[in-house]
């Protein structure tokens, strides 16, 4: 794999990378006696998110699987295939774990905390280029906030992670304590593709195929974005940043045209939406690069980016180990070269203020100092 030299020279920040989903056995050391007992005595396991069937082409490029087929393999594979080739300076890990989908809010919160501890110990402590998002239960804002506050002391956690297809529309007031905490602590809220499947992922029922489910994920993001706008989240939390992760972005121009048209006609219903949705999105929303879902016609991708008219919007991502691109084509054909430095570095630094924080007193730091 030969990285585009311009990208490598920048030393990009990869804003979406996936460590393998930990088994419950791997999480046991990070659970307390009660939950360890619950997990073992009830034989609970297999909590990876079903939106990503481990064997599906979506879930890992063929060469990005471990010897047993595990998507993403291990840290050595991640270093070799995802971090080293691009000269990546920092990469943000998103565990695709079902803690966010667990119906019991207590069990979900306990598992989310364990996953966060596991990421810190098994990944962040061992690889200084890695950062992580804070996994939280999707059923209780109160418990989610408790986990966010517990994690916030560790500057290597740079974002709150929510599932696109979660329990409720994210704009609803029940979720606002999460946004209050995120805004206060300088954490963007990342919304990742995938569903808890507490609802069908479309309003016309359950799609049959993995490919169909994944294509439909783009509309899940559109419903969520509209909810965040319509409920006035960005009016109430003016410093909040939301990152759509693995959402695609070529649907955004048509979304903004329609959302703006709806707002012009119906704004008296939502008077707290005090600017057009297009303005709100350009200020508050960021989107990771992959999957690019780029149009094939020459010049068409550049036109989509002009239509979005938000040079801050895109954040570089490989989406490792998901199979979104082939060879070394992490940059979609037709991506305007003059945006590269923004996408690869400036936008991530601007979006994630914690990426600039010094990292002290961590195991890897102490180890490398000794």
């Amino acid at each position, binding site marked *: 794999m030969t990285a585009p030299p311009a990208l490598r020279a920048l030393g990009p920040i990869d804003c979406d990378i996936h460590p393998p989903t930990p088994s419950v056995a791997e999480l046991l050391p990070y659970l307390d006696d009660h939950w360890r007992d619950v997990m073992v005595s009830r034989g609970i396991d297999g909590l990876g998110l079903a939106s990503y069937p481990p064997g599906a082409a979506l879930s890992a490029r063929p060469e990005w699987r471990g010897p047993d087929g595990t998507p993403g393999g291990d840290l050595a594979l991640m270093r070799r295939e995802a971090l080293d080739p691009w000269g990546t300076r920092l990469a943000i890990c998103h565990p695709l774990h079902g803690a966010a989908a667990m119906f019991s809010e207590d069990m979900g919160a306990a598992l989310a905390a364990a996953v966060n501890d596991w990421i810190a110990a098994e990944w962040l402590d061992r690889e200084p280029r890695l950062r992580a998002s804070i996994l939280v239960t999707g059923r209780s804002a109160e418990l989610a906030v408790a986990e966010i506050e517990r994690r916030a002391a560790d500057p290597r956690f740079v974002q709150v992670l929510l599932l*696109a297809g979660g329990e409720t529309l994210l704009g609803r007031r029940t979720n606002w304590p999460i946004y209050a905490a995120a805004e206060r602590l300088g954490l963007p809220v990342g919304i990742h593709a995938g569903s808890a499947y507490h609802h069908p*992922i479309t309003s016309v029922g*359950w799609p049959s195929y993995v490919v169909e489910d994944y294509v439909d994920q783009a509309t899940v993001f559109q419903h969520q974005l509209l*909810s965040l706008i319509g409920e006035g989240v960005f009016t109430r939390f003016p410093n909040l940043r939301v990152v759509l992760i693995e959402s695609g972005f070529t649907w955004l*121009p048509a*979304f903004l045209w*329609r959302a703006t048209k709806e707002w012009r006609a119906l704004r008296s219903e939502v008077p707290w939406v005090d600017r057009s949705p297009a303005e709100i999105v350009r200020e508050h929303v960021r989107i990771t690069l992959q999957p690019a*879902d780029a149009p094939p016609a020459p010049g068409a991708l550049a036109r989509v980016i002009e*239509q979005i008219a938000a040079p801050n919007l895109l954040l570089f991502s490989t989406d490792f180990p998901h199979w979104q691109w082939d060879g070394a084509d992490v940059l979609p054909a037709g991506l305007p070269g003059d945006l590269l430095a923004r996408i690869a570095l400036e936008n991530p630094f601007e979006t994630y203020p914690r990426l600039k924080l010094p990292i002290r007193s961590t195991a890897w730091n102490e180890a490398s100092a000794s």
Partner: protein
Amino acid sequence: MSEDVLERAQEGKTRLGIVDCDIHPMLRSQDALLPHLSRRWREELQTNGLRTKNPFVASYAVPKATPALSRRDSWPPAGGPPGSDLDFMRAQHLDPYGIETGILQVLIPSGKDQRNPAFGAALCAALNDWQVAAWTEPERRLKASITIPAEDPEASVAEIERCAAKPDFVSIFISTRTTEPLGRKRYWPIFAAAVRHGVPLGIHTGGSNGVAKTPAGWPSFYFEDHFADALAMQPLLASLVLEGVFEAFPELKVVMIEGGFGWAPALGWRLDQHWARMRSEVPHVKYPPSQYIRRNVWFATQPVEEPPEPGDLRSLIDWIGWDRMVFASDYPHWDMDDPRRALKLSLDEAETRALFRDNARAAYGLA
């Protein structure tokens, strides 16, 4: 159809007759259905009434923006709700815009969405007979769409067989929100019947299926609800393509009504990209999904897209195909499009004829 209806002179200019693919007729009152129902179903309507998967007796789940969802000036002076008075529809809509053909889409009441399926089927039949008696027979410019109890494909096919041979009917109406994605095999008998009779399937936004209106539950506002209806078009179309409906029924014509069309190219790009990687899962889909969309699907214009740059509107239609866009007004609803002003785009004469008349004539097989 006579020349003088097709092209009439107004203000010294030759005027193009328009095919409007989305006009909503309303019952003056529920009693208008009684002559078309059997005694049993008259009793059902008069005792239990209309029952859908909706919390309220007689309101939409999310209240709409305006009374009766309609333009405030569309209430007929002679009484009755908007869309219920043929003379007023002629005076307010058909005549001034020069509508040569208006295609009726009955949204309310919905036979498909009734909790009692047998009543739903009877309601569909009654609505079809009412469309003929109240609209298409007295006004030859109007054509009907066959409303069907789509969740019961056998009953749907029977209703299509009963109606399709009559020249009054030019399409089959299904609202977007079916209980399963529409591409599923259980709905295929409907597609077979549509192909057999050479009538397009008009898929109109809306309906209620008991499933939350978004993948994360119910939205709070009509601002979201209205947009959510349009967004439902995307998974619906993905389902038709990925289940192989257009492979099995290459002649099937689908018209997507009131969902806009700005989303279509991006859906095509995304479908093509992920199909290329995961096509072994859907071996029955032999070509890139966007090819089926461009071959089998027509898009109605309303609510028309409004990109700030008119060139972007043109690019959308370039992708979909200038022979695949049909005009729709959505009269008398609040968000209807005026054919004179809707498309903020300068069209040449051939494009105008295609969009406002000829594409719909071809899609619906109109004279």
